[in-house]
């Protein structure tokens, strides 16, 4: 008996955005990466189209991480001492994008300067041909100072500057406007707050196709349901035609999962939790795949093994 599969058509579509610029477009990337553009819920390819699969960004730091799990340091080896090498390794590990996370201080406790930020950005851009994202340390004054320098150094490369927040977005958005970049706007797990920040940023004149929204999330076991539901509601609003929510979403499951003891540590936890190595990678993988199912367009990951597994998952879901 033939079964008719009901088709759900949505009036709205997520904006397609282009990260990175090739020499022809005024940058130096070997290729650009497009995100978003879907007019259906994730992988519902019978309902609509998903022109771009969810993308994987690998997070690298500007120096050897101090509080990362030993498993991550072991997986990356010595490259963590050199952001350029780490960026190259990330590309080799299968990333679509490289996210450079700047720290508040350099070795020896000196504050990171604008010159440091420029040099780091330049080094990463030279080491990889992938489009990049650069996030500030997360402190208002430092973010503003460093990201302006980064934006100038990377002018024309269409990088993503982060993180804009409701209380601090003007300077970063102005820097993106002046140098042809995109911004990432983060809000605290709430549909309305996410939409509000998009409006604030757009009000400054940055076109919507240069804004990515980061609705914040939580790891498996630590409130992921809440983040999932917020992202799902944002995506449903977008598909229903609410313009100010029709932006690709970026989330950071790597950061979230590796904060939790299930992933981070192997000692002092119940034996019944099983093998640490397996559990840790699974924790990050499941956090990421769940968020992809709720509508994430970019997931930021940390462990190379997770990258492989999430990639395999995306490939299978995208197969017709």
């Amino acid at each position, binding site marked *: 008996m033939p079964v008719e599969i009901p088709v759900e058509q949505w009036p709205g579509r997520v904006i397609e955005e282009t990260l990175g610029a090739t020499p022809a477009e005024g940058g130096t990337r070997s290729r650009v990466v497009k995100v978003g553009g879907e007019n259906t819920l994730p992988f519902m390819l019978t309902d609509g189209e998903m022109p771009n699969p969810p993308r994987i960004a690998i997070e690298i730091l500007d120096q050897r991480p101090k509080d990362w799990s030993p498993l991550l340091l072991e997986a990356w080896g010595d490259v963590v001492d050199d952001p350029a090498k780490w960026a190259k390794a990330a590309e080799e590990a299968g990333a679509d994008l490289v996210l450079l996370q700047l720290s508040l201080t350099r070795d020896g406790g000196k504050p990171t300067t604008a010159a440091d930020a420029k040099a780091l950005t330049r080094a990463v851009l030279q080491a990889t041909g992938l489009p990049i994202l650069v996030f500030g340390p997360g402190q208002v004054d430092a973010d503003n100072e460093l990201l302006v320098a980064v934006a100038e150094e990377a002018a024309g490369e269409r990088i993503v500057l982060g993180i804009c927040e*409701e*209380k601090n977005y*003007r300077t970063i958005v102005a820097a993106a406007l002046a140098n042809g970049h995109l911004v990432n706007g983060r809000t605290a797990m*709430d*549909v309305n707050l996410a*939409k*509000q920040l998009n*409006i*604030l940023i757009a*009000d400054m004149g940055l076109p919507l196709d240069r804004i990515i929204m980061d609705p914040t999330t939580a790891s498996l076991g630590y409130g992921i349901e809440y983040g999932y539901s917020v992202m799902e509601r944002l995506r449903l609003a977008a598909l229903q035609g609410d313009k100010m929510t029709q932006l690709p979403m970026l989330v950071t499951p790597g950061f979230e999962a590796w904060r939790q003891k299930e992933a981070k540590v192997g000692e002092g936890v119940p034996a019944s939790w099983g093998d640490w190595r397996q559990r840790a990678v699974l924790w990050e993988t499941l956090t990421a795949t769940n968020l992809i199912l709720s509508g994430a367009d970019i997931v930021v990951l940390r462990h190379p093994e997770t990258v492989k597994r999430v990639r395999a998952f995306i490939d299978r879901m995208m197969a017709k």
Partner: protein
Amino acid sequence: MVTVVFRPEEKRVEVPPGTLLSDAARLAGVDILMPCGGQGRCGRCAVVVESGSVRRRSTQRLTPDDIAAGYALACQTLVESDVVVFVPPQERIERRIKETKRAAKIELPFPYDRHDQPLRKFAVTLEPPSLADQTDDWSRLQREMARRYGIRNLQASLPVLRKLPRALREGDWTVTAVVELDAWDRPEGPPRLIDVLPGEHLESLWAVAIDIGTTSNVVWLVDLMRGQVIAQAADYNGQIARGEDVISRIIYASKGNGLQELQELVMGTLNRLIAQVAAEQNIRPDEIYKATVAGNTTMIHLFAGIPPESIRLMPFIPVVNQVPTFPAREIGLGINPEGTVDCLPGIASYVGADITAGVLSSGLCDSDELTLFIDVGTNGEMVLGDCSWLISCACSAGPAFEGAGVVHGMRATAGAIEEVWINPETYEATYKVIGDERPRGICGSGLISLLAEMFITGVVDKSGNINLDLPTKRVRRGEHGPEYVVAWADETATGRDIVITAVDIDNLMRAKAAIYAGFSVLARSVGLTLQDVQRVLIGGAFGQYINVEKAIQIGMLPDMPYDRFHFLGNTSVRGAYYALVSREMRRRVTEVGRMMTYLELSADNTFFDEFNAALFLPHTDLSQFPSVAALVGEG
């Protein structure tokens, strides 16, 4: 070219047709004040076109009567032929603007019957005692009251009896008896002698209507001979220093001497206000013989010295919804100690007598039009319904709109900035002060107007963040973070800058968001939308008016035609006044209580969502505010 003549200065100028009157004035050297920078928003540049033809681009600020009288906004009016224009003095414009929005006078919507009152005055002349008639003073008075007025079984307390001999003899056996024939909870009497005065004093009979708000307290002095409000006074509740909202007051009351302290604090405020209205009329407070009191349930508990703890704890029940009447001496209220205190009935812990009083006096339940009533105060109570049903909720707006919890906030009294305009090019502020004095602070309507102007001109973004990059000294980083200077020190009465800070703006944003979210949830709970509402009645401790347009611009009130809004002033004290002077109103206020359903917002998970959505200027969903969208060019 056409000629424009400006009177009374008789200055003239030649301009091409199509020139703005304001430009012509500038060329002619005539000064016209333009607070909003010529955007047609403030209505301050109004002039009278005496002859000739003009085209009014916008008349937003003018009434049809104004236009018929020839008024035109100089900044919005193009000359088409030779014209003669009269530039009115500024005061005249202010009066015109104010009069269109003046709050209704305090009038009773029903006829007053001074004979149908429980509290009455009777003049009696007694037969002086003699050796032939040795009846005692008290029996003599009782006998005469029964014979002359049919008042039997008159009772008196000891303190009144003590006054009797002197009054009788000083008045040469003519006295005025102040009698309470019955009371709310003693409809059958017996009649009670409250005071006895030597001689005949029937000119007036004083009582007070009182509203005890969490933030503001109000006393109206009423003459029961005429049924009219003769004097009014208001001040902040002395309890504020012990907590801004009812919950913190309840907690304070539960500790040590807290209850007694809070009771004394509110009594201190009320007694000062009573003394103030009495002094205005040249009377003594003990010539006031009755008080009718409205207030939220917690305030009534604290006023009566009843422990309020249970209001805060599951399952949230008050000790008493309708307090029995009691004499003023029992709580130290500064009227005649024998005078009766009536507290209006509340409905529940969070819908108190202030709301039943508000519903009563706003006329909400007299009409079949779907009506939204809001008491803009600390608790933000609101009621939706018509003559056949009522549903209410309390959205906890905080005291910001009463001018409290804001650095330079104040009540709507002389010296308060009540309206502000900001020039969109220079970011300069122009303001209007109650009583035309130097400003001392900003009242609720001023804060609404200020926030709206800051939003429209881009001094703040839609989240209310002050833009420190603007090219003006008025935005700056102050002691409490970013701030905007509304008035410079050399303009103010205090000699200090009057500013609004980022924290103030946060408080205002929360207050307005709570109110709008309350509206949304209330309407949705009965399957309606805000657009279905036919009338919006606004009560609250604002000054003479609240600028509806500005309140819509910040997203505090729903975007609908202005004529659906009616500003009623303090509806709670008004309800107390109605109940004070009418038996029918006392019956109705009890009925209101019985009709009303209460929606507990803390148990409603859509409230939080609606609140966050409303925490934006004007709202996250701009489609709910089409007139504001058009104004900011996003329509």
